[in-house]
Structures are given as structure tokens and as C-alpha cells.
């Protein structure tokens, strides 16, 4: 594989024939590039939220789902966005106003922020700081602050319970997630996303590429499970748990605020998919098709996995969740880290 090309803003500056060393040009080009990435991810989310999710769940439960408007019911996306945005915004009694308004904003924008460092192939790589992986973990966990804000500010008991459950869950699964991510860093020797992708470009055995999912399938499985908890999908969807606490932290949100929380959740799933694709599945690498297509295939594969788990795996109880997190996943992820270190040490 060819080495990763220059970050997106520089490529754009060269395309426009401007000097990539001047700061104002870079700010302008960065904004254009960011708008491009934002649009791409919003398109994915728009496809996933109102349409693909329904179709997938329907396929699992032997139903048809949306098929009335447009080909395959695709225009439901337009209908739904107009419908949801034109709903009345009901502000319940006693909500803690600034926090209640800021929470949807934080949930929606924090997840989008993580895509800055994800290499999507074909030069679609907005920024490549040396702390890439640490940065992306930081942005991914910012959403839990939003969930607590939403839960507490709503002044609703269901929301409050949902917010507290979200904290318990994130506390229990953040550490295994990050430790498993760290075991990948031992292989790659860098936190920079482009380096991690480049380190996976050799072949392992025969035609099999040395993606870390093949090099260390145990870490991959751990990361997938911890990621399900991180994005709050079954079997770890207890912060929302529709059959127990109505809708958890989003109970009191209507209209555009509901859209933003819903959107944030889907962007978060895709961000989880993007992290998995980058550190375990070789980023945009793949035969024949261009990089961006492979990248999209991989993040949609992870999305499909979360939807499959949502349809097929029963929800765990909160006490089971704490036990799985602290007694199972944490111990396993520490063992994985040390084992990886020993193996790498012996080979190197």
C-alpha cells in the first residue's frame, strides 16, 4: 500500500492553487474539509437512522418496514426529517434550562468531532496529530457527560435513572475499551492514526493482511463488546431500556432536541465503527475498490453488527453489567495487554 497522502486541507489548498503554508488559507481549507467530512457523516447517519435501522430490524423480525415513499422507501428520510423538525418543542416543568438545552448539542457534536483524525482513504483525512488515538477516545467518551446532563436536567425520574445508568455503564466499560486499544498501540508503536493504518499494511499469512483483528482476534472481540457498551446498544442498552425506564435520559426531549440526541447516538455508533475499522481492520485498506468505499463498508459492517445485537441479544441487568465490566472485561483486558506485551517482546 502507498503511504497515506497529505491531510485533506493541504490537498484542497493545492487543488485550489493556494499556498498551503499560510495560516488563513489553511483555516479556510480546513473549514471546507471539515464541512466535507461533516456532510459525509451526516449522510451516513441520515441513511442509517430513519431508513437502514428500520429495514434491518424489520428483516430480523420478518416484517417489511418503510416502503411507501420513493424507491425502497428511501424518501422516508426526507419525510421524517421534515416531520421531526416541525414538531412542537415542549419544555417540561422544572427543567434545568441551560443544561437541558446544551445536552443535545453536546451529544450530537462531540461524536462528530472524533472523525477529524479518522483516515477514510483517498486522502479524506482531516487531521493527523500524533495523539490521534487518545484524542478519538477522548471525544468518544465526551458524550456520556451529555447523557448525565440530559438525565439530571430533565427533572424526570426516568431520565435521572437513565443518566445514572449511563454513567455506571461508561465507568465500567471505558477502561477495558482503552486498555484494549492500548494493546494495539504496542504493535503499532504510535498513537498516530496514519501510522497505525500503515503498520497494518503488510501481509500476515498468504493473502491475509496483517490487520490487528487477525493478528490479535482476542483483542478484537473484547473491543467489539466494550464498544457495544460504549455506544449503548444491546445487550448493554440499559441507559435507555424502553421496557424499564421509558426512554431513559431522552424521555423529556421532543422535536429538534430529540432529533439531535438520536443523531448523536448514530454518529457515535459510526464513530465506534470508524475506530474499530482504523485500529483493527486496516482503516481504508482493501483490494480493488477505492479506500473510501472500503472504509464505508467497514463502518457499515460494524453498524450491522450493532443492529444484529440489538435484535438478537437480550439486555443484561444493571448488576450483571457492573459484574461483566469490572470482574470480566477489565481482568481480560489487563491480561490481553500483558500477553500482547510479552508476545511483542519475544518477537521483537
Amino acid at each position, binding site marked *: 500500500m502507498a503511504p497515506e497522502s497529505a491531510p485533506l486541507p493541504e490537498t484542497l489548498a493545492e487543488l485550489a492553487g493556494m499556498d498551503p503554508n499560510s495560516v488563513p488559507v489553511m483555516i479556510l481549507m480546513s473549514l471546507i474539509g*471539515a464541512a466535507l467530512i461533516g456532510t459525509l457523516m451526516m449522510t451516513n447517519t441520515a441513511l442509517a437512522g430513519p431508513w437502514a435501522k428500520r429495514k434491518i430490524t424489520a428483516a430480523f423480525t420478518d416484517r417489511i418496514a418503510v416502503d411507501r415513499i420513493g424507491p425502497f422507501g428511501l424518501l422516508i428520510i426526507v419525510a421524517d426529517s421534515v416531520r421531526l423538525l416541525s414538531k412542537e*418543542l415542549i419544555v*417540561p416543568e422544572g427543567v434545568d434550562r441551560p443544561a437541558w438545552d446544551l445536552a443535545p448539542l453536546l451529544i450530537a457534536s462531540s461524536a462528530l*468531532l472524533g472523525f477529524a483524525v479518522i483516515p477514510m482513504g483517498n486522502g479524506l483525512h482531516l487531521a493527523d496529530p500524533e495523539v490521534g488515538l487518545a484524542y478519538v477516545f477522548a471525544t468518544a467518551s465526551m458524550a456520556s457527560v451529555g447523557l448525565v446532563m440530559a438525565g439530571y436536567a430533565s427533572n424526570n425520574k426516568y431520565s435521572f435513572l437513565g443518566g445514572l445508568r449511563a*454513567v455506571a455503564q461508561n465507568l465500567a466499560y471505558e477502561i477495558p475499551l482503552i486498555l484494549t486499544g492500548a494493546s494495539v498501540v504496542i504493535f503499532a*508503536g504510535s498513537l498516530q492514526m496514519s501510522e497505525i493504518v500503515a503498520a497494518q499494511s503488510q501481509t500476515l499469512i498468504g493473502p491475509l493482511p496483517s490487520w490487528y483483528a487477525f493478528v490479535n482476534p482476542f483483542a478484537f472481540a473484547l473491543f467489539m463488546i466494550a464498544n457495544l457498551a460504549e455506544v449503548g446498544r444491546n445487550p448493554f442498552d440499559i441507559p435507555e431500556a424502553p421496557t424499564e425506564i421509558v426512554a431513559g435520559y431522552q424521555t423529556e426531549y421532543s422535536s*429538534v432536541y430529540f432529533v439531535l440526541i438520536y443523531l448523536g447516538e448514530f454518529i457515535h455508533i459510526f464513530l465506534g465503527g470508524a475506530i474499530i475499522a482504523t485500529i483493527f481492520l486496516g482503516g481504508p485498506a482493501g483490494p480493488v475498490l477505492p479506500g473510501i468505499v472500503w472504509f464505508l463498508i467497514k463502518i457499515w459492517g460494524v453498524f450491522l453488527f450493532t443492529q444484529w445485537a440489538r435484535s438478537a441479544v437480550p439486555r443484561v441487568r444493571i448488576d450483571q453489567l457492573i459484574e461483566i465490566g469490572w470482574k470480566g472485561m477489565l481482568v481480560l483486558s489487563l491480561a490481553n495487554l500483558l500477553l500482547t*506485551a510479552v508476545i511483542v517482546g519475544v518477537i521483537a
Partner: protein
Amino acid sequence: MSNPWIAIGALAVVALAIPITMMFVSSLLRPSVPEQGKTATYESGEVPTGSSQKIKFNIQYYMVALLFVVFDIETVLIFPWTVIYRDAVGAVGMTRALLPMVAFIGILAVGLGWAWRNGAVRWVRSSRATKGADTYE
């Protein structure tokens, strides 16, 4: 090589602009029909029993939260080690690169075992649910 944080800042602007635009569009489209009862807190159709911010209950996991802080700082300390580990093995040998981290994680593992035995990572049942089974201090 330009500063990557310019681009990240630009994405932050975009990431805030998208939701704010949606809020603005929605404020143009949506009706406002204030009615009595619409703004009542949702409690499955019952008359609300009061604020959720004044109720008291055991949030169960303050010990877990303390453990989280310990392990979170631990991951911060592990990350730099993972980055240089491969080079360090080549430079000073595996024993000197690995053993300090094994000792570090070992101490944490002992701590986790202690917390485990003391029931810090166990979900506490209320004393009404299980009489006298509460070893939580």
C-alpha cells in the same frame, strides 16, 4: 506539515454549526401551542409526584467511580509505555522494558482483587431485598 489542530478546530466549528442550524430551522417550522398539562413531567400518565432532583436513593457505585479514577489514571500512565515499548525492547531488552509495567499492573490487580473481595464492584441490594447480606461499608 501544517498544524493538525487547525483542522480539528474547523471540524469543531462544523460540528457545532450543524446542530445549531437544525435548531434554527426547527424554530422556524415548529408551532407553539402552549396548553395546560402539556408541560407536566412524564410519569407514565400518572400525576407527577414531584421533582426528581429532591429524591434520595443509593446510586450504588460511588466506590466503582473511585476505582474508575484509579484505573483511568493508570491508562494515562500505560499509554506512553505502549508507544515506546517496541523500541525499548530493542534498546534495553525485554526484561527491563516489561518488568516495571508488570509490577505496576500487578499492584493495580491486587488493588482490584481487594476491592472485589470487599464487595466494591458488587451491586448492593437494599436491606429490604436481602436482609443482613450487606457487607458494604
